[in-house]
């Protein structure tokens, strides 16, 4: 099965990149497919400063070619860079550094520049607007870096793009990608995370009681609160907090580390491995769906991996189908 066929069944698909030059735009082009198939397709991107400029052309993002009928949400300031003939359908109240986000229907084939909202809540409203306007399928181009959307309220599936640009060593690329896939597929708690006002961390004990924890001395306050249950973070889960727990000698086997969604799990591979080795578990409020992983064996920095080897190693390491869209196009 090709990536396109796999993706066709996902109503809202978001793309996330492990790094710059992971081939995300190439994958997006593949997912958009030929211009004649663009009716009912809606496109936007997660707008984010700093990561959104193409260094080579100094354009905000590499252009994407769409067919007439496609629905596009982009920033007002990027419209002059879209050369498809447009019919403006909506001006949203979402503001970006490039102006308000507007939605148009392409009346001709052509290149478009994407620059959309950056907050999950705005994205999910935009997605609803797309469906109201007749979209059947929504693609969200995420940013490089794994903070990019994977909340279920935004996307029904995620395609993670990785490539040789991440690191010179193929095994490191595979391991780092597998680590992120592991986070993306963390099990869902099936309930809302316990929260207490003002508390960065809360322990939901097996008896159902919640205790606010002292973020400054997490280990002893976890211990004091019983040492077992769901350790819920309000906001991001970061290395320093978890490292302190791992090093504290605390028995972690009864603890499940939890955050709202995978984008808030900012743990590096070593720390996550340490946590698991000590018996700790991890979970998110609602699990994301990893639809596929794509690989780009060519690095923007001059080196390249053997395509077949890369594909095979990746496939063995991640819990989702792996594609090399460039190879697929040539086959």
């Amino acid at each position, binding site marked *: 099965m090709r990536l396109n066929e796999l993706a066709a069944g996902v109503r809202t698909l978001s793309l996330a990149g492990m790094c710059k030059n992971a081939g995300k735009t190439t994958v997006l082009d593949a997912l958009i497919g*030929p*211009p*004649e198939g663009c009716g009912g397709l809606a496109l936007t991107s997660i707008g984010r400063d700093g990561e959104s400029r193409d260094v080579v052309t100094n354009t905000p993002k590499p252009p994407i070619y769409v*067919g*007439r009928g496609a629905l596009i949400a982009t920033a*007002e300031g990027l*419209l002059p860079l879209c*050369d498809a*003939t*447009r*019919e*403006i*359908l*909506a*001006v949203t109240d979402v503001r970006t550094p490039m102006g308000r986000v*507007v939605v148009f*229907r392409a*009346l*001709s*084939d*052509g290149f478009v520049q994407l620059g959309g909202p950056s907050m999950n809540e705005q994205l999910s409203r935009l997605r609803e607007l797309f469906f109201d306007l007749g979209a059947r399928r929504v693609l969200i181009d995420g940013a490089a870096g794994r903070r990019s959307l994977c909340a279920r309220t935004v996307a029904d599936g995620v395609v993670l793009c990785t490539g040789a640009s991440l690191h010179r060593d193929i095994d490191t690329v595979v391991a780092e990608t597998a680590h992120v896939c592991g986070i993306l597929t963390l099990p869902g708690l099936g309930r809302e995370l316990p929260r207490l006002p003002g508390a960065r961390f809360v322990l939901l004990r097996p008896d159902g009681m919640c205790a606010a924890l002292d973020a400054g001395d997490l280990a002893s306050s976890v211990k004091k609160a019983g040492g077992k249950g769901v350790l819920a973070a309000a906001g991001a889960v970061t290395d320093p907090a978890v490292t302190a727990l791992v090093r504290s000698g605390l028995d972690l086997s009864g603890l499940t580390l939890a955050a709202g969604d995978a984008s808030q799990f900012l743990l590096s591979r070593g720390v996550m491995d340490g946590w698991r080795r000590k018996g700790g578990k991890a979970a998110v409020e609602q699990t994301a769906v990893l639809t596929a992983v794509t690989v780009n064996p060519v690095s923007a920095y001059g080196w390249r991996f053997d395509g077949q080897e890369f594909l095979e190693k990746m496939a063995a390491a991640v819990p989702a189908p792996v594609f090399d869209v460039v190879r697929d196009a040539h086959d």
Partner: protein
Amino acid sequence: MIETSRNESLEWVLDELHPASACGRELLRSLRPGGPGDREALERELDDVQRLAGADDGQWRQVSRLAHAFSMVKDLRRTFARCREAALDEIGLFEIKSFLMQVGRIAPQTERLARELGVGGAELDVCAGALRLLDIDGQGTAAFSVSSRYSRELADARQEKRQIEDEIRRTGKLTDEAQARRTAALAREQREEEAVCRRLSQELRPSLDVMEENLRRIARLDLLIEKARLARAWGAVRPSLGGKTLRLDGMIDPCVAQALRQSGGEFTPVDIALRRGATVVTGANMGGKSVALRAVVLNTLLAHMGFFVFAQRAEVPLFDEILFIAEDGQSVQQGLSSFGAEITALDRALTRCEGRFCLLVLDEFARGTNPEEGRRIVAALVRYLSGRDVVALLATHYDGAARYAQAHYQVAGLRDVDPETLSREIKSGEGFRAIRRHMDYRLLPAGALDECPRSALTICRLMLTHSGLMHVIEEGY
């Protein structure tokens, strides 16, 4: 220290209003009290609030639906301004088109408001010509594109572009040659699109005044509906404007009333009439003098802003300005003694009263200085004000100050309460709540009561737990 047009209760009332449209919210933010010269406009506004407030349930449901339609209306004043000076781009034209579509949807409803309830300024001009201009394809939706129908040249350019697109579709490739032709076609398209946008903007210009008037009317109606909603919810009444006497019967402060209600209490309505000269309110500590003063200021301000007032009956003269002086602690932080700051504020207020007709309200003036001097100064102030063309209201502890006053009110206070009962309730931990329950907050003309009750002593007896101190206090009385 002088609060002229803003006070906490007024903020509360304004926060209770939720205009649905952006322009309605903007109008609310810019709302300022009118003066004697605005009588006609205020009466017109009150006429319309009255018409809406008096709508029956069925009519009110329609009015509420209108608020929903207003919520879709964007504030396009900047777009209008841009259109006067330069060509709008496709987004600007889209915004104007969708505004006109909204107006078209709203107009029949506001028309009905005018017809059935007699609300003034409710008719909207649908700008049919301008809408036809922007809806050249006759889609009847808000969507806008620089349609090929606007120009032959544009249609040709797009046809050329289309041929190249189809070629790319067929071959699946964008060759350099096709790329070059495409670039030329795009340039031609863009040039012509810009020309069309310029032309459309120019042709819209004569309708801009009407569109702006529509926006103003929508903002006004939106706010008017909110004023009426508030009046309906609180049973507020239309103030009768003019004259020289400020008369408020059964008046409340809704902000305080709500806070009291939440803690199980109830606001005691206040009856007060203020004529030219000074009126003095004296009476019990915790008896609500300050609350009554604030309520007077609030309701007078509201009347000057075209609102119904929170009273059973209201006569409100139109003042040039409403001046309120109360110690707020800020001036002390600024390094002035509180008394010095009060005098400065009073001086400024008196200057503002010269040659103008003002409401001047002073809460516990000169409380920060020694009582003997304070009494003399307040008495002098009352005497001074009594000869002026001003409506002044002073709350004070200094009973003697009332001698020169036009009128003198006293807070009824803890007069008819059995101290034993009250004391028992306080000891059982009821504290403030018990006092609040037994306090008679009514303002009564001073003649109706005996000598001012020594309420401070009563309150000390009730609330002071250090009996040693209480003993010493009682010895001194």
